[in-house]
Each structure stands twice: as structure tokens, then as C-alpha cells.
């Protein structure tokens, strides 16, 4: 085990896969000599050189299209779109081309590529650099969607995403880049689509993803300390494939469920999870499923306002009181 920062785990996963598979390539703006604006690819250019690490112009459509053309013809590109907000600048390539090509051609192509991006708020970057848009990707059939909450998960899930034969949008939590954690030094790959039960509890279930996992865990501790209730905390890790089963099992036990998600309302991922549970586990529900989300507004840059807008421990506790 090594102590790595979340961002170093990104580089570690890419390095592991580049070494293992000669077809893995990294492509993006300033991912090479610059090491990435978040330093998430630092050291890779020095180690693997320009034949594996490709700096591009500011041309998100070209980055995504190039990754797609390469993926169809034997390469496994890892494309960086610097901020997840910028997925909008190449959304056609992602949602209409990459996600659909396999189906439209009756399975003539595979699309083994990863689109990495920095997602979420908390760093006061304002409305165009702080969005949590994992719901945008989840809404497009044909994409897989991953959003890890720890350095170890970053390494294991990014490696899995690179090896996966389907296109994966990989959301790195901006706010967590500097967070450290234990990461296996040896080859490390996790399966996609397996939620992680991070804390057991019988009184209620908290479902979280990426940046809200910490919020859910803190809330659970507060809850235990304040009112002696034990919350089960589930880190979904992936939105597609969505591990409904793990959530259902927990709900069957607790009967009460709160979702903590960073997507703004309306239509964050918690809405689909709620809908599935209502359809398929209605009898398990002892109380309404409550969602704690970012407010339905563009994210303000002022820290005072940004804090209010995002889901936090206080708002989660308040939601639990409403159960």
C-alpha cells in the first residue's frame, strides 16, 4: 500500500494500464508536459513520452472524435476533458456518436474508450467550472458512468474503465484531488457496477457518490452521536452499471433511505434510483425516499453561497428528520 493523493491515483491507474497494454493512449489539453491543470497526469509524459501522451489544441470536439475513431480501430484512448462542464462543448460526440455507434451499426464496432473529467463544486470556481453533471452522462443509453470517492477506488475503477470494451465517462471529484488514502501498489482493478457498503447500520440507508460520500459518512457519525441511530452508508461508485441490488438489500433492512447527490435538482441521479426503488421495492419503504441535492440553480462562486447551494451534513440531517 502507498499513500497517494486522489490525483496521483489517476496517474497511477493510467501508468499501470499504459505499461500493460500498448494500445492505451492519453489525449487531452495540457495532459503531457504540463502534467494536467489538476496535476492528475503529472509524471506520465516524462515516463512514457509523446508516443503515449498526446497534448492537443483547445478542440474538445476533436479530442472526443479522435478518441472515438481510434477506439473503433484498435486503440484504447483515455481522453481528458478538463472540466466536466466542458462535456457540453463536445456533447454531440459523446451522446450521439460514441454512445450510439455500436448499436447503430448492429454491433460492428466496439468503443473501448474513457472520457475523464474533473467534476463538482466546492472550490469556488463559479457556475461554468463547478457543475456536477454525472446525471447528463447517466441519461444517455450506451455510456457507462463511474465516479470514485477514494484514491484506491480511483485506481481500481479507472483501470477497469480503461479495460472495459464500452465507453466510460469517468468523473473525478475536483474537491478530492488533494485528498490522500491508501492505494494498492500492485496491479489493481475493481469491477464496474459494484456499490460499496462503507458503514453498516440498521436504522436507515444513506446512498452517496463521489464527493457526497464524505458527507454521508459524517452525517452517519453525527446521527449516531446525536440520536443513537445507525445509518448504513452506500457508495454507489458507478451510475452505469447501477448496482440496484446492494441498495435494495440495505433498504429491505432499514426501510428508510436518503440520497445525497451533488447533481442539482431536477433530475439528478437520485431521481432514477428513487423511481427504481419505488417500482421494485415499494413494500420495503417505511417512509418516503428523500433526496438531498444541489439546489436547482447555477452554482454561485461566492463561498458563502456555494456552501448553501451544495448538499451538506446539516441539510442531510434535516432530511433525515423529515423521514
Amino acid at each position: 500500500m502507498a499513500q497517494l493523493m486522489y490525483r496521483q491515483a489517476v496517474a497511477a491507474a493510467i501508468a499501470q494500464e499504459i505499461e500493460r497494454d500498448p494500445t492505451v493512449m492519453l489525449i487531452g489539453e495540457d495532459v503531457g508536459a504540463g502534467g494536467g491543470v489538476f496535476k492528475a497526469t503529472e509524471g506520465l509524459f516524462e515516463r512514457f513520452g509523446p508516443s503515449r501522451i498526446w497534448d492537443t489544441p483547445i478542440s474538445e470536439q476533436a479530442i472526443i472524435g479522435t478518441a472515438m475513431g481510434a477506439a473503433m480501430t484498435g486503440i484504447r484512448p483515455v481522453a481528458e476533458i478538463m472540466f466536466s462542464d466542458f462535456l457540453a462543448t463536445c456533447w454531440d460526440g459523446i451522446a450521439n456518436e460514441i454512445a450510439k455507434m455500436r448499436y447503430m451499426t448492429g454491433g460492428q464496432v466496439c468503443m473501448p474508450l474513457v472520457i475523464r473529467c474533473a467534476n463538482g463544486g466546492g472550490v469556488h470556481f463559479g457556475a461554468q467550472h463547478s457543475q456536477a453533471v454525472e446525471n447528463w452522462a447517466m441519461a444517455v443509453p450506451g455510456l457507462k458512468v463511474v465516479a470514485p470517492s477514494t484514491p484506491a477506488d480511483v485506481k481500481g475503477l479507472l483501470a477497469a474503465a480503461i479495460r472495459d470494451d464500452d465507453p466510460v465517462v469517468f468523473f473525478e471529484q475536483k474537491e478530492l484531488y488533494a485528498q490522500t488514502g491508501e492505494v494498492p501498489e500492485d496491479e489493481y482493478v475493481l469491477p464496474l457496477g459494484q456499490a460499496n457498503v462503507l458503514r453498516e447500520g440498521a436504522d436507515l440507508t444513506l446512498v452517496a457518490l463521489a464527493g457526497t460520500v464524505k458527507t454521508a459518512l459524517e452525517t452517519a457519525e453525527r446521527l449516531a452521536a446525536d440520536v443513537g441511530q445507525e445509518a448504513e452508508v452506500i457508495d454507489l461508485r458507478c451510475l452505469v452499471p447501477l448496482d440496484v441490488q446492494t441498495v435494495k438489500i440495505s433498504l429491505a433492512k432499514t426501510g428508510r433511505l436518503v440520497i445525497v447527490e451533488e447533481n442539482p435538482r431536477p433530475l439528478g441521479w437520485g431521481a432514477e434510483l428513487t423511481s427504481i426503488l419505488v417500482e421494485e421495492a415499494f413494500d420495503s419503504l417505511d417512509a418516503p425516499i428523500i433526496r438531498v441535492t444541489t439546489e436547482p440553480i447555477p452554482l454561485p462562486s461566492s463561498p458563502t453561497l456555494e456552501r448553501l447551494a451544495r448538499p451538506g451534513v446539516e441539510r442531510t440531517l434535516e432530511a433525515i428528520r423529515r423521514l
Partner: protein
Amino acid sequence: MVQQARSATDIGVPDPEGIYREMLRLRHFEEKAYELFLDGHVNGTMHLGVGQEAVAAGAAATLRPDDCTLGTYRGHNHVIARGAALDASFGELFGREIGLCKGKGGSMHLTSVEHGHYGSYAIVGAHLPIACGTAWSAKLRGADSVTLCFFGDGTTNIGAFHEALNLAAVWKLPVVFICENNLYMEFTPIGEVTAVPRPAADRASAYGLKPIVIDGNDVEVVYAGIAEAVDRARRGEGPSLIEALTYRHKGHSRTDPARYRPEGELEDWMTRDPITRFVQRLQEAGWNASDLERIEREVIEEVGAAAERALASPPPPESELFTDVYCAGETSWRS
């Protein structure tokens, strides 16, 4: 500069009969497809390439099997010229099991990876960056295969065009961008919405490329022009942008009557029909009319039989609904 065809006796393509037959196959495929569209057999929409056969046939003749091509919704010509079966092509238009894409793609998405044709794309401009990718891939894999990317005049005004051309030039990618300038984007004359007279060629210098305009209705000129660019690309000398001047005889799509055309324009271009012109060239070069007619009859028969086979194919089985979304073989969005 519109180049002229070469001298009258030697035909400037490697296999004149093959090219002639190919152009006829494209033409009769489209005519038959139109007929069957009117009869209600084609689902959705359809964009014909009648009149533009010289570009697809001439271009395909410059390629090796391992080269890649990408085209548009007006893409029947291109996939067939690469070798896709006519019955499977018809079948895709009719939404049948026999279809190139099992009926899931439709007229606008004909694809035959088996023949190096990496798709027909229906969102204008989207495939230009993708062509950069197939070209980049060849470079990465150490293969000397080349990518050809076909698109229309209207496509030169969309952002993806710009990003793709710049990246291709910066990375010296083995890709040839071929703009089929047929004068119209849908119903609008291209000149009304473009800042320069030659929508592709007048942009070449923005990417450090040479402006190249060719007569897209002269298959020998097309062959020569594209072959040169393909050779350049194969030698590692980077991308080219070629503007081929051509014309679509039919409307934009479906049954568009094309009333927006000035009077006499179609008639004028009919005199420059690429097949008629090539027939003249062949006859001048000594081919005899009865042979040429026999070939055409053979092609008509081939096309008709292919259409019949496609019409006889059943619709895709219901079980196909959920396959091909993810590689695992079903809609594995939940685990």
C-alpha cells in the same frame, strides 16, 4: 482550378471497366431505392447521391482494403463503392434482418467495417474529428493505412470541421478530407451562407494546406486528385483537403422537389453527368457501345435481384432490440 481529364486514348483509372460498373451500380442502386421509397419500402428518410457517383467510385479505386472511409447520411454511394453487398445495403434501408446494421441503423447510417467503411454519420460535421481518430490510430499502430472522409459543402461551416482540420494538420495525420460541393446545403445555395466562394478550398490555407479543387464529375480527375492525396498521406506527409465540384440530381431528401433550384441548372449539370461523360470517354477510347450496354444490363439485373433478396428478408427479430448497446450483449445499465 478545375483540372481537365487526360488525353483521349488512355483512360486515367486502373480498371476502367470496374469503375464504369461501379458507377452504374451506385446509380442503379439509388434509382431503385427511390422507386422503392415511393412504394413505401424505405423507412424514415433517405438522401440520394445520384449525380455524385464519380467521387465515391473514383475515391474507392485509390484505396487498399485496410484503408478507412467515413461518410454521411448521403452515403449509399460510399459504402457500396467500398464493397458492401447490395442486398445488405437495401436491407438496411428497408429495416430488415439482412441489413448491413441488422436494420438498426437505417438509410443514414450504412456501415460496413468489414470493408473498411467506418460509418455514415447523420449529424453534420461529426465524423470529421472521428476520421482524425481512425487516421491517428493507423499512425499509432504503425500501419500505413489512410483514412478518407467524405462530407458536403454545408459541412464546412460547422465547428467540428475547423477542429478536425487543425488537429489533422498539427499531427500530420494520414487523412484526406473530401468535400463534395454539390452547391446546396439542404435548400439553401451554399454561397448564401458561406463567407468565401469555395467553401472548402478557400479554407485550406487556414490549416497550412494547399487549396485543391477538382471536377468531381470526371472520374479520371477524381481518381488522379485523390490518389495523389492518398499517396501523400501514406508517405506520412499529412492531410489534404479536396473540394470536388459535383451536383445532386435529386432533391435533398425523400421526395424534395428541389424547387429552390434556378431554372436550367439541373439540365446544365445533366450534360455533365459523370456516367454519361465516362461512357463518352470509353467510347472515344475504343470501347464499343454494345459492351457498355451489356454491362449496364448486367448491373440492372444485379441491383434488381439484390433488392428482391432484401425485400424477402424478414424484419429483425424482437430479440435484437436489446443487443449491441453494450459489449456484454444486453442493456447492462444495471448490475
